């Protein structure tokens, strides 16, 4: 079955070109040109990935991102023309999983989308635990003492990557490769922002993390089981 990509972009030429490229790569695409129609489209179409332009009429891309994230864990890849740290971090904090800076090459975009939808293959039954958190990998479920914690797929991937090798310290670069699928070193801010988001959900006290520990100067590792 083809993966469905929802393109949210107000520029018709770019939207059409994205459609051509993505169809050529074997995706199903749908386009909405207005931020206010993005959320209904997500509800209706249940896409596998949302491709979201941050500069939108009607509703700001950041707000659209937040709105989608508030009710869906669908992977969001944002398209941005701005490379300033503030803009990128703001986008990531509002819930985007990854970003692509205009102008991008088609291959780059496709790689980013593939990385977000690739987790459909069946996984072996696996139970992991960090601290008082238990992770049911094939069911995509995370519990703390019987209470379910809702994570986005990306956050889930991040947590699983850490939990699978409890004693290993992961550098940001390694996490970028394992979770985001970047082969070359990319923007480590992606990792920082998502670790913060993950902590806000799985930690009892995000100020004093017990599940995702920071190893100063190196990276992150899982807390003791």
């Amino acid at each position: 079955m083809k993966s469905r990509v929802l393109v949210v972009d107000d520029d018709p030429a770019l939207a059409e070109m994205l459609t051509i490229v993505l169809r050529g790569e074997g995706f199903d695409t749908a386009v909405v040109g207005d931020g206010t129609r993005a959320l209904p489209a997500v509800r209706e179409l249940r896409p596998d990935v949302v491709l979201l332009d941050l500069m939108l009429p009607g509703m700001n891309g950041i707000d659209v991102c937040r709105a989608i994230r508030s009710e869906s864990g669908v992977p969001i890849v944002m398209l941005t023309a701005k490379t300033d740290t503030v803009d990128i971090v703001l986008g990531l904090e509002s819930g985007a999983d990854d970003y692509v800076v205009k102008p991008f090459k088609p291959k780059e975009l496709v790689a980013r989308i593939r990385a977000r939808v690739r987790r459909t293959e069946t996984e072996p039954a696996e139970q992991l635990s960090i601290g008082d958190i238990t992770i049911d990998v094939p069911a995509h479920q995370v519990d703390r003492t019987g209470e379910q914690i809702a994570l986005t797929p990306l956050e889930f991937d991040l947590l699983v990557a850490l939990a699978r090798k409890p004693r290993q310290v992961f550098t940001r670069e390694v996490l970028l490769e394992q979770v985001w699928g970047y082969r070359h070193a990319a923007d480590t801010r992606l990792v920082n922002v998502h670790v913060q988001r993950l902590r806000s959900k799985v930690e009892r006290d995000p100020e004093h993390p017990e599940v995702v520990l920071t190893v100063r100067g190196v990276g992150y590792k899982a807390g003791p089981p």
Partner: protein
Amino acid sequence: MSLVGDRARQALGQARQVGDELVEAFNAVWRRSLQLRVVISTLALSTAVVLVLGFVIQTQIGGNILAAKLDDAQRQIDSGTALLERELAGVDPNRDGAQGELNNALDRLTNASADDASGAPAAGKFRAVLTSAAGGGGSDVAAGPLEAVPADLRQSVAEGARALRYSTIDEQGVEIPAMMIGQPVRTANGDLEFYLLFPLDSEQRTLGLVQSTLIVGGLILLLLLAGIASLITRQVVRPVRQAAEIAERFADGHLDERMPVHGEDEVARLGESYNEMAGSIQSQIRQLEEFGALQRRFTSDVSHELRTPLTTVRMAADVLYASREQLLPALRRSSELLVTELDRFEALLGDLLEISRLDAGVAELGAERVDMNGVVARAVEAVRGLAEESGTPLELELPAAVYADVDPRRVERIVRNLVANALDHGEGRPVRIQLGSDEHTVAVLVRDHGVGLRPGEAGLVVNRFGRAEESRARRSGGSGLGLSIAIEDARLHGGWLQAWGEIGRGAAFRLTLPRTAGDTITASPLPLGPDDRPGADIRPPGAGGSVPTPPLGWPVVIPSWSEGDDVSEPAGDLR
């Protein structure tokens, strides 16, 4: 002896030194304080005035006193003469017993003048002398202190005229100035000489009193004048000082500083004019700032707005390029050109955006402790493709574990730009990339052996969109902004970017960064000049060319080229 002499000389030298210092200090104060100058000038001028005035007053008073005295003396001697002529009409000075007669006559004279207080005005106390004429032979008879009368006075009197002299008389061992007046007295048997001596001690005392009064008064007057001058100058100087302080603060960037304006006098006018000037400067600066900000935002906006259509074009081109095998040769080549030129266009746009961000001062330094080895190696890897294309061997000299607080993305970009630049201009000859460090700094040197730089070009190569020479092809597809960005990046780190070059011998670019963010650097661990000629001197770290990169400003060429000389100095400082 010589020891004493030495000591004396030493002491003298010290004293002179102290004196010089005092003079210097005074000169400094004199130059800097208008108030002091006015006070001292006032003091000097009024001292002169007071001195002249005092002298005139004193002379005037003394003259008047003496004239009055003389008047009285004339009258006294007139009446005395008349009395004596009456009394001594029958006295023969040459006869025995004349002495007694003279004494009696003098006694009567002094008594008469003492009794007759209401008669002739008192000429004060006096002493009378009566003597027989000096010229008449025989023994002199005299009454009174004849020895006090000077000889020249007697001479004049002997010639038969009234005469006046000022001299001193001795009174109980004290010399007192005195006025002496002489008059011949005729008697039946010969002439007598009659003298009156007026001691002037009381007049002298009066004059002394006047003098000391004048001195004390003058001094007080001077002090008062100095005080007044100081006060008045203060009134003028204080607003001026205030104005100076406000102007300084204004110059320091406090553009809202204004002078307080009170009343309508000159100071108020100064304040008003100053405030007007400050206002107009402020508004112009604001305008310029706004204009600059607007321009920068425009650049940034344009760059952003261009990105969306560029993305579409880029994707379209890539789709065409991906299926270029199915196209006719001309179309195929076109699609290839389209893609390569789009790459250039993108690089240019990215650089433009970066430079506008650096110009706007919004670029931030994401400093972290990294191994420079890795950063430089990554930068070199990024351009290795270019190097292989042009067949340029890359010589790396990268010691491991050179840690520094830098922004790895920026440093990587700097090194990438430098190496790409060296590949562009290296004419296929080896390019050496060297990493060096010392306690406080790290440095990366990129050296090519290509066409080199002409004199003065070292400073120019960083001109935006500048190409050192028309013939220099750009293989790297660089935008021409690369070195400009590199300089801004280096400056953001508080580092240096310097260039050296010589025609036919290649060029060298050296980046020096502080190991700890925020440190200032004073020397670079790597030499910038040529190192490959026979007998080349490897300059010790920091020698020559370590000109700091100033915080702001644009490249200034610092030529250190000398004709026909082997230049080991850096040819320019890229600021």
